[in-house]
C-alpha cells in the first residue's frame, strides 16, 4: 500500500492510510528512516487520522519509528489519533509512552517548530 510522504521544509509528513497490514507498517518504518536520512530532515509527522484501529502492533511500530528516527537526530510527532481509537488504545493499555503526540497536522507542526527553536 502506498503511503504518501511529503516534504515540507525540514519536516517530512507521512499520512498513514487505514487498513495497513503488518508488512505495510514494517515497510513504512524502514522507508521513513531512509527518507529522513536522505533529506536530512529534522522532524517527522506521522498522520494517523485515517487509521480506524491502532492495535498493539501498530502502537509498537509507532514507538519504533520514533526511536529509530531519534537515533538519526530527528523528532517525530504522531498526530490525528481519533477519540474512539484513543479510547480503545488505553483500554488495551497502549499508551505510546515516550512518543510525542498532537491533535492534528497544525498542532504537530507547531510542536516541531517549538522543538527546533529550542535546539537552535
Amino acid at each position, binding site marked *: 500500500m502506498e503511503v504518501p510522504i511529503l516534504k515540507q521544509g525540514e519536516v517530512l509528513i507521512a499520512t498513514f492510510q487505514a487498513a495497513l497490514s503488518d508488512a505495510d507498517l514494517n515497510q513504512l518504518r524502514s522507508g521513513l528512516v531512509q527518507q529522513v536520512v536522505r533529506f536530512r530532515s529534522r522532524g517527522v509527522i506521522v498522520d494517523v487520522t485515517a487509521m480506524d484501529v491502532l492495535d498493539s502492533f501498530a502502537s509498537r511500530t509507532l514507538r519504533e519509528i520514533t526511536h529509530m528516527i531519534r537515533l538519526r537526530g530527528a523528532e517525530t510527532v504522531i498526530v490525528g489519533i481519533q477519540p474512539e481509537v484513543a*479510547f480503545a488504545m488505553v483500554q488495551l493499555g497502549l499508551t505510546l509512552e515516550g512518543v510525542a503526540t498532537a491533535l492534528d497536522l497544525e498542532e504537530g507542526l507547531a510542536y516541531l517548530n517549538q522543538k527546533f527553536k529550542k535546539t537552535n
Partner: protein
Amino acid sequence: MPINSDQDIVVARQKGRALATELGFPPGDATLIATAISELARNIVSYARKRHITLQKIDGLNREGLSVIASDQGPGITDIRQAMRDGFSTSGSLGMGLPGVRRLMDEFEIKSQPGRGTTVVVKKWKQ
C-alpha cells in the same frame, strides 16, 4: 474466516467493523470491537496452526450483540491465569494479551488445552 497472514488480520477487523455497524452499534463500540478482533487475531497468528476467527450476531434477552470466536490448534496455553495477568504476552509483542481484550468487550471466555489449542469467545452487547 481463516487467519493465515497479517493481511488476514486487516480483513478480519474490517469485517468486524462492518458487521458491528450493520447491527447498529455506535461507532465507538465498533472501534472497540474491531480493535479486539485485531488483537485476538494477532494472538493466534504467530505460532498456531489452523487459526480461525468467526463473527456472529447474537441474540440475548431484550438485546442484540456480536460475538467473536478466535480459535487455533496451537500448543495451547498451559497457565491461563498467568496469560490473563496484565502485561503478559506469550510471544514477545505480538498481541498485548488477553486482559486488554477483556476490557474492550463485555463478555470474555477462554478455553485452552495444552497440545490441542485455544478458543477465545468474546461478546459485546448493544445498549
